[in-house]
């Protein structure tokens, strides 16, 4: 009776350790997947921030985190005219640009939407930018809001 009792407890402990290790492994895998997705996020954010179509330059010097408002207005048409090209470089993302106006508040506009219908994972990130109007050098607060589907 005593042997059966000891064996039962030993198996019980072993099964708990087994369950824990399995859960641990699963969590470690999720962290790795998450790391890959974050890396993809950072790559995408750099790619979007450096798109020559929307970059703002002053005296031929490209300014980091500055978007040209006039170029941005025509960017939407450029995307519609070349969907395959942007699909190949941007992938399955939704790109929204939020703009803050000191009088009317926040507004948003979707520039590119290639949303996956059956996605298993969705991540989003935000990159604050300065939206500069080259006509009067007025600077507005903007945010690139990207949703990545995988």
């Amino acid at each position: 009776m005593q042997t059966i009792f000891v064996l039962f407890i030993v198996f019980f402990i072993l099964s708990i350790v087994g369950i824990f290790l399995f859960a641990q492994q699963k969590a470690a895998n999720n962290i790795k997947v998450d790391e890959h997705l974050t890396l993809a996020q950072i790559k995408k954010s750099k790619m979007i921030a450096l798109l020559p179509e929307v970059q703002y330059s002053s005296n031929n010097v490209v300014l980091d985190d500055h978007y040209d408002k006039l170029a941005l207005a025509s960017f939407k048409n450029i995307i519609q005219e070349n969907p395959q090209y942007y699909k190949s470089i941007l992938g399955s993302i939704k790109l929204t640009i939020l703009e803050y106006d000191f009088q009317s508040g926040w507004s948003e506009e979707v520039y590119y939407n290639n949303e996956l219908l059956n996605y298993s994972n969705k991540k989003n990130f935000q990159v604050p930018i300065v939206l500069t109007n080259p006509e009067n050098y007025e600077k507005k607060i903007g945010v690139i809001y990207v949703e990545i589907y995988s």
Partner: protein
Amino acid sequence: MDILGLVLIVIIVVMGLFFLMIASRTTNETKVDLLDSQLSQSLVNVMLQATTDCGQSFIKIVEDCYGRNNICGSVNSCDYISTKSKEILDGTLKKWKKPYRFYISKNNVKKVDIDSDELECTNLMKRSTGLLLIPDKEKVIIATLEICKI
């Protein structure tokens, strides 16, 4: 006596599992902190570069808050910064469920100090901080944006 041995084994196994759990938690938190500190730094940079509806840049109004306090006509510069910063940060960080605190200080005198109200940034929370130093008559004005981790 046998039971005592089993209890000892169970305690050792539980302690082992507990330490494994603690060790596996650290890496993911570091990554989130890095992304949030980038976001807070970019947001504070972008915010203070913007041109406001009274024709002045946000940074000039911050400087005026510690000076004559009337650069925007009848509107108090410090009140203007508080109202507009709250509108900007509520429309971004609060909307994305990120508790924040934004304050401007010079020589330890805080004239602007706002937060995300019900999404509280408590003292126990980890913070990712973005700073902008504005030189002003021998002293420095410091604009600080803290994003707290829930």
